[in-house]
């Protein structure tokens, strides 16, 4: 798409004066958006980097900065809780995104040829996407409740468990409960992206595969999957970005607990900054999170290299 832009630029090269007013109008139109983006994203990112090299005290005269070099990073990286959060954020993200892509793909494949109920299905699938995460967290908190939660009632009714379980009170079940709430909210989003990817595959490809004598499995691996890789990459990339920043769900559902089991990087950052008021340390956590997220995107994209390029055109 960027290539198109370059070529239209050349095509529009006209006489000098017209050209210059167009250029000036162009920069004029770009200015408001540019100022807001620079002021609210670029300046704070650079400032965060600067903060992470300082010890910052909140005094009656405002914020006092003392340059301390890499001390904040040393403190952060020597704290076991930081590494625990990194580990939790990574395995939480990898597992939920993998499960969402897997189920999303299975569901999209199964329902792609259903002709009725189309608009009602789209509406129902879009609602979790547009739902306030805090609401879904409260909803699941009530379902998981150890005293009067409906999940216990259902599982007891089915004789799967015998006594009520405090799902959010034990490390393992708390993590799984968070994951299920997340998967419930975002799988429909993955299904929608993959469904529209499936619709773009030309029907002749399947007919050709059929003529070549391919069975269902072979036509999936040789036609569907390669054609769908762009959509999978898009859904996966978006979900990884979101999952690595996970904050709302554990904030409401587990408050990072039990203990610190479900403390994600974003929660640790927020706590360091706004509960403990360690602004320098918090900035070091934030910068480390950005590096981790960029790394995760690069790893994911390199696994899908080429395919995403096609999709972006």
């Amino acid at each position, binding site marked *: 798409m960027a290539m198109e*832009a*370059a070529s239209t630029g050349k095509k529009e090269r006209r006489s000098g004066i017209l050209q210059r*007013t167009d*250029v000036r*109008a*162009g920069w004029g139109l*770009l200015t*408001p*958006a540019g100022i*807001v*983006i620079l002021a*609210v994203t670029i300046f*704070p*990112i650079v*400032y*965060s980097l600067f903060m992470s090299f300082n010890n910052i005290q909140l005094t009656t005269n405002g*914020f006092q900065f003392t340059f301390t070099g890499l001390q904040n990073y040393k403190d952060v990286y020597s704290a076991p809780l930081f590494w625990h959060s990194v580990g939790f954020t990574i395995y939480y993200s990898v597992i939920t995104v993998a499960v969402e892509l897997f189920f999303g793909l299975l569901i999209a494949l199964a*329902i792609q*040829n*259903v002709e009725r*109920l189309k*608009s009602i299905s789209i*509406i*129902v699938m*879009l*609602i979790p*996407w*547009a739902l*306030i*995460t*805090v*609401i*879904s967290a409260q*909803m699941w908190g*009530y379902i998981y409740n150890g005293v009067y939660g*409906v999940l*216990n*009632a259902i599982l*007891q009714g089915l004789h799967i468990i015998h006594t*009520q379980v405090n799902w959010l009170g034990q490390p393992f079940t708390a993590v799984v409960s968070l994951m299920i709430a997340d998967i419930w909210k975002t799988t*429909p*989003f993955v299904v929608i*992206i993959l469904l529209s*990817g499936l619709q773009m595959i030309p*029907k002749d490809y399947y007919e050709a595969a059929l003529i070549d004598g391919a069975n269902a499995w072979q036509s999936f691996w040789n036609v569907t999957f390669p054609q769908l890789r762009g959509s999978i990459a898009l859904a996966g*990339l978006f979900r990884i*970005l979101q999952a690595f*920043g996970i*904050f*709302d769900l554990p904030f409401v559902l587990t408050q990072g607990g039990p203990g610190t089991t479900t403390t994600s990087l*974003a929660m640790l*950052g*927020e706590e360091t*900054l706004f509960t403990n008021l360690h*602004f320098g340390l*918090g900035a070091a*956590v*934030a*910068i480390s999170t950005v590096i981790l*997220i960029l790394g995760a995107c690069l790893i994911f994209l390199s696994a899908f290299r080429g395919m995403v390029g096609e999709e972006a055109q």
Partner: protein
Amino acid sequence: MTKPLSKRILGYVVLIAFLIAILLPFYWMFVSSFEPNTDISSYPPAYFPKHWTFQHYAEAFGQFHFGRYILNSVIVAVVSTFIVLAFSSMAGFAIARLPVSGKRPMLIFLLIISVFPPLVVITPLYMLLRDVGWLDSYQALIIPYTAFNLPFAIWILRNYFLQVPGALFEAAKIDGSSVFTAFWRIFLPLTTPGLFTAAVFTFVACWTEFFMALVFNPSNTMRTIPVGIALFSGQYTVPYGTIFAGSVVSIVPIVVLVIIFRKWIVSGLTQGAVKG
């Protein structure tokens, strides 16, 4: 193309099971919002409520100021959406149709900043807002929400402006219209689907945002819906009835939005542009 019957039945079974799985938690929240407190915390719970009450709705809007949270959310989301539409359509038009240099780096730059998590900008913004005394204000949220939603909106609108033939721009200029008139009178009306998409995505993002709203606007009168619902909890018990009454009310506009704009949402999700 006709599919074997078994495959079609499987499709319907999976679809219906999937839709039920999405809707069940909503059903549970919805009926609980109408149950008296004793039924909400009874075990085993009744799958269909025995007694109905509007008490929680009265509480949410009475003692818990939920009306105020809704008003705050509406103001922040609507104003941010309008600013995003104005700024992003101007920028998108300039990138798509005007001979400014460095378009490609600009677009890549927009992609990159939309990857950064709010965590990295939140502290400097907090310090800045604190210094100018703007914590607990509408602009404390409107400004960052505008900035965070601009990149996606610019990408979407740029794609729509590219679909409008460039010859129209030349024709308008020959007729003596200024660049701005051409943008406002000719191009903008032709890209309404793009404006809808950008508007819905911005509105939903502002409506659901929690992190910045929690940090920048914590006082009870300036909370948005997500912050209000997250901090509803009482001293010893969680007032689920009230929480769910507020939640049900705040889901209504989202459902209406999804029903009206579903086509544009799906096209926005699948543009292959920045993110959803």
